[in-house]
């Protein structure tokens, strides 16, 4: 099948970017979106042109490296997938696809479709962990966790940090990401001692990174490849507000 790709090309942060139009004629419908870009890049390299930069790693939808906008939707039209798992059979022969990088102040552009998502790592570093002594593995069932809680924690823990939530949000909010991290640790017994401080620190870092506000409209949930539910944002707000009230103020502790 044949596809027309209009791809955002930008050499680096300091140069101006623009859309470039490419025709890819030998697209196999079973290829993934990334493999389609591989085919294009091989052709560009053969002709001595600069290949399109995009991020990728596992190519099985679990690492969170890949992602860009396809026709205005993060990760493209198929729900619950990353672009590496989006096969070309979901497009029509001769269709024109507009590929754009994630757009957010907190995600500065690196090149073409690749953006710098270190802001997410800094949010995790601010509190997305539990402080426990390492050693031999604890006994199974030593800490009881109800099935319902374990399931909800694992649902939130599925977040792969791809950034689609930020990309799809009209306010470039990182609430679904931060909410998923706060929820997955906050639902489990191991996460309780640091629950207040974690929420306050992670949310404070999220706001410092210049992500926008959450208006609960649900665009993030619709594009999330792991289908993280919007209630993780409610949980983040709950833990943040409660934690802000309880945590000692600076200079008080």
């Amino acid at each position, binding site marked *: 099948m044949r596809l027309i790709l209009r791809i*955002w090309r930008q050499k680096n942060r300091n140069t101006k970017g623009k*859309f470039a139009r490419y025709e890819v004629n030998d697209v196999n419908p079973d290829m993934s979106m990334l493999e389609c870009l591989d085919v294009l890049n091989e052709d560009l390299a053969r002709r001595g042109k600069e290949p399109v930069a995009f991020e990728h790693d596992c190519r099985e939808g679990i690492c969170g490296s890949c992602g860009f*906008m396809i*026709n*205005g*939707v993060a990760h493209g039209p198929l729900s619950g997938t990353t672009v590496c798992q989006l096969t070309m059979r979901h497009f029509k022969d001769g269709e024109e696809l*507009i590929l*754009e990088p994630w*757009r*957010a*102040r*907190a995600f500065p552009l690196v090149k073409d479709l690749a953006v710098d998502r270190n802001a997410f790592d800094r949010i995790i570093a*601010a509190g997305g962990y539990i402080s426990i002594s390492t050693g031999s593995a604890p006994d199974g069932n030593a800490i009881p966790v109800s099935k319902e809680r374990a399931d*909800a924690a694992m649902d939130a823990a599925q977040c792969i940090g791809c950034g689609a939530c930020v990309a*799809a949000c*009209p*306010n*470039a*909010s990182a609430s679904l990401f931060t909410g998923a991290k706060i929820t997955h640790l906050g639902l489990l017994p191991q996460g309780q001692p640091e629950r207040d*401080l974690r929420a306050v*620190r992670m*949310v*404070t*870092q999220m*706001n*410092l990174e*210049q*992500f*926008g*506000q*959450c*208006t*609960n*409209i*649900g*665009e*993030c949930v*619709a*594009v999330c490849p792991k289908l993280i*539910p*919007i*209630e993780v*944002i*409610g*949980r*983040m*707000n*709950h*833990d*943040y*507000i*409660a934690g*802000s009230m309880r*945590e*000692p*103020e*600076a*200079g*008080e*502790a």
Partner: protein
Amino acid sequence: MSSIAIGLRENKAVRLWDSTNGKKAVMAVSGFILFLFVLGHMLGNLQVFEGPAQFNRYAQLLRTLPEGLWAVRIILLIMVVLHIVAAVQLALRKRTARPIGYAKRKPIGSTYASRTMYWSGPIIFAFIVYHLLDLTSGNLNPNFIEGDVYHNVIASFSNPFVSAWYIFAMVLLAFHLRHGLWSMFNSLGLTHPRYTPALRRAATFFAVVIFLGFISVPIGVLTGIVK
């Protein structure tokens, strides 16, 4: 545990207000109080169908205690100011959070009501200003008679343009409430996946009830049921 968290401000209230989440919590609480007023206002309005005596008696009842009336007015004014200041500050932040927009963007997961909050809000505010000048102070109502609320309502709504503008504002209010009444629970962290569908249904229900309740008055006047 010492408070070494990054960028923590000295005062809890200041810190909360400084965060986008804190401002949304303020919008949720102020929005809820304004919703309670709107609900009460709508229920009070329905007494217009019981005739001039009952309706004017109700209007007088609200004014028996001027201190109480002004206390409610001041609380509502504070809520309106908080709601608008937070909304404006967040709207400005939305711009800085995405300086470069998309060439193409397709909404797939949001409702029309939720995407148009920044439009419905300011138009509703403009309506409230007009509404107060029309039926509370009477400046914009050519046939205004101080104290004869029933007469004033009919004088105002007999003009189809006034009624149309009123109904249009109520459509926007219904849209605003349809999203806001659910959103406030998530902003305050009072949601759970099990109750979200019920919460959304309740939000739609109250939005529709408030819409129908309010528009029944101008429609009643225009059709001659209220005269």
